[in-house]
């Protein structure tokens, strides 16, 4: 093993429902304790509301709703803060797992199952018996209106 991993090759692995997902670690600003978001009217259904992050008001997106995950989660969820083009956005997930390095070349393209729009879904990688889905988190969380599933598949 002689691969050299740089900071940009590190991925944060997190759990939502039964699945593991990973996104580039550099896209996150921080992980914070869950605080119940306050309602913001007239927003889309996966937009949970807003929180006060040290004086900054930021919107929060529920990734469970965005991914249409219906199973209940009994524990206390976590919140990942991502810095997107439209400002910081919080993402609600079930649990932060670990950070692993992975080269871009090691991420397998998805051929069979294409449930989600390809703009967000970057592929898979195998790690410790788990198949982990790689999500481009910045554009994923900042597009809270769009349907998660690609149009092709709906049709």
């Amino acid at each position, binding site marked *: 093993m002689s691969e050299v991993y740089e900071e940009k090759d590190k991925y944060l692995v997190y759990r939502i429902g039964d699945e593991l997902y990973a996104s580039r670690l550099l896209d996150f600003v921080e992980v914070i304790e869950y605080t119940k978001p306050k309602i*913001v*009217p*007239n927003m889309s259904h996966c937009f949970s509301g807003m929180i006060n992050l040290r004086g900054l*008001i930021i919107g929060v997106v529920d990734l469970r709703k965005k991914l249409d995950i219906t199973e209940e989660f009994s524990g206390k969820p976590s919140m990942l803060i991502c810095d997107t083009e*439209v400002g910081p956005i919080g993402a609600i997930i079930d649990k932060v797992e670990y950070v692993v390095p992975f080269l871009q070349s090691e991420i397998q393209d998805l051929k069979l199952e294409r449930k989600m729009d390809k703009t967000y879904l970057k592929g898979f990688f195998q790690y410790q018996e788990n198949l982990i889905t790689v999500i481009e988190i910045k554009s994923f969380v900042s597009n809270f209106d769009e349907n998660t599933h690609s149009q092709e598949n709906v049709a």
Partner: protein
Amino acid sequence: MSELDLELVTSFLDEATDLLTEWERLCLLLEKAPGAQELNALFRIAHNIKGSSRAVGLNEVGEFIHFIEDVIVSLKDNKSEFNARKLKMFLGAHLILSDWFMVLRMETSYVHPYEDFLKEFFNEEKVFIDEQAVEQHEDEKGEEVSQKVQSVKNVLKDEVLRVSTKKIDGLLNLIGELSIQQSILENSMESLMGKNQDSLVISSLNLGRKITKEIYSTAFGLRMTPVGGIYQRLERAIKDLSRDLGKSIEVELNGSEVEIDKTILDKLIDPLTHIVRNSVDHGIENDQERKNANKSLVGKITITSLKEGDGVEIHIKDDGKGLNQKRILEKAIEKGLVKNTEGLTKEEIFGLIFLPGFSTAERVTNVSGRGVGMDVVMKTLEEINGKIFIASDEGKGTKFKIVIPTSLSIVDSLIVSVAQEHYVLPINVLQEVVDVRLIDLKKHDSVYVHRGEVLPFIHLREVLCEEKEFETSIIPILVTKVHGNRMAIGVDKIIGQHQSVVRTLSTYFDRSFAISGGTILPSGEPGLILNISAIVEKYFNFLMKKNEASA
């Protein structure tokens, strides 16, 4: 020279100073290895500075740089060779321009003396001489100049520091957060310490609060800029237009030192320009009319800024013909903007000119009748929580009084509760708060009769959560006035008054039309500031139509 636009000159100087830095870098590159690429770049810079200096009226700078440009051109065309002496000249020019630009920041009419430089490098035909000139001598004038440059340097060092507003806002955010923590601490003190309040703790808490307040106001002052910054533009607008229209107008400017938040000042430029142009175009009469009216041929526009209470007032006064009430009324009726004109006060009649679709100009001039009317002025002012009042005497003149808050960052607001959530409403759009029994409310007609006046009514539950039912038998109703439209807005409960520190929200909140900003509530939770004008705009006409249909 006095008519040079300060803002234009400043932006030229900002750009030119960057170019000079590049100039210096290129000179150093040329010293190492002269190349065509560097010469071309040098030429572009010289040409650029020459062109833009002339564009802003600094002809002397253009003249000076023209000499240097000639030398570069001859180098570019291989008519002469690059040598140490030329480099020395380029660097000398750099020095002169740097000093020149620095003094220009203080004095737009300044012309830097460069005769010595010319004598050293150019012959009498202004052609570059390649031989070393005779000995150099520093004369008294040179000393005087360098003293002047030095003194400007000292002043500028103290006065100007360009800081991005982002940094200042970041600082303000942090201080705001600090003061919230402070108030949480104070609130919980009683429960923490019970009756045995330690006087040391109390006094240090009080002191802490005082210091926080002071830090806040100091940091806040960083955002403030004197209104004088836009006076020059207004004066320019008046002068330009009066020249076009052949009117002679004298401008008087007062209170240029009054300070106002930079964001607000920027927003004020357009509405104020519109008002002064209107005064020139429609207010001040032409020579003949003024003669007939026994007025001095020179019209006068006075702009005055005053600090009043928490805000700032800007008065724009002209000694023109004043507003014609009859004409305004006729026009408003003709355009279908009013139906019942009886009993309208003078102020109310003047207020009609702010309605969308109103324009007093009988002919559409390319001056004031560009489709943007006074309603745009009103709208912009509302965005910054400003108000406008008109006083006018026919034949004597018109005075616009604009009242604006000094800062957008703090709003006096009312906190209300709607469906268990707290929302913040800016107080300036509210006229009255009344408790109304549900049975008195013609709920299903979406109408509330307020002292004989029929107002369209909507409950915020409907706006914010698409919920129509509300259970209490008495609800508070807020009477608001936006764009001259009065509307009644129902809420569940009034929580209290609060001075809210406004936090800008990320753009993705824009899709919720009812929100204009965010704030941190006294509890430390985030709160939303409602955009009452947007709510009234969305529902007013809809409800009026609905009522007319059902009536």
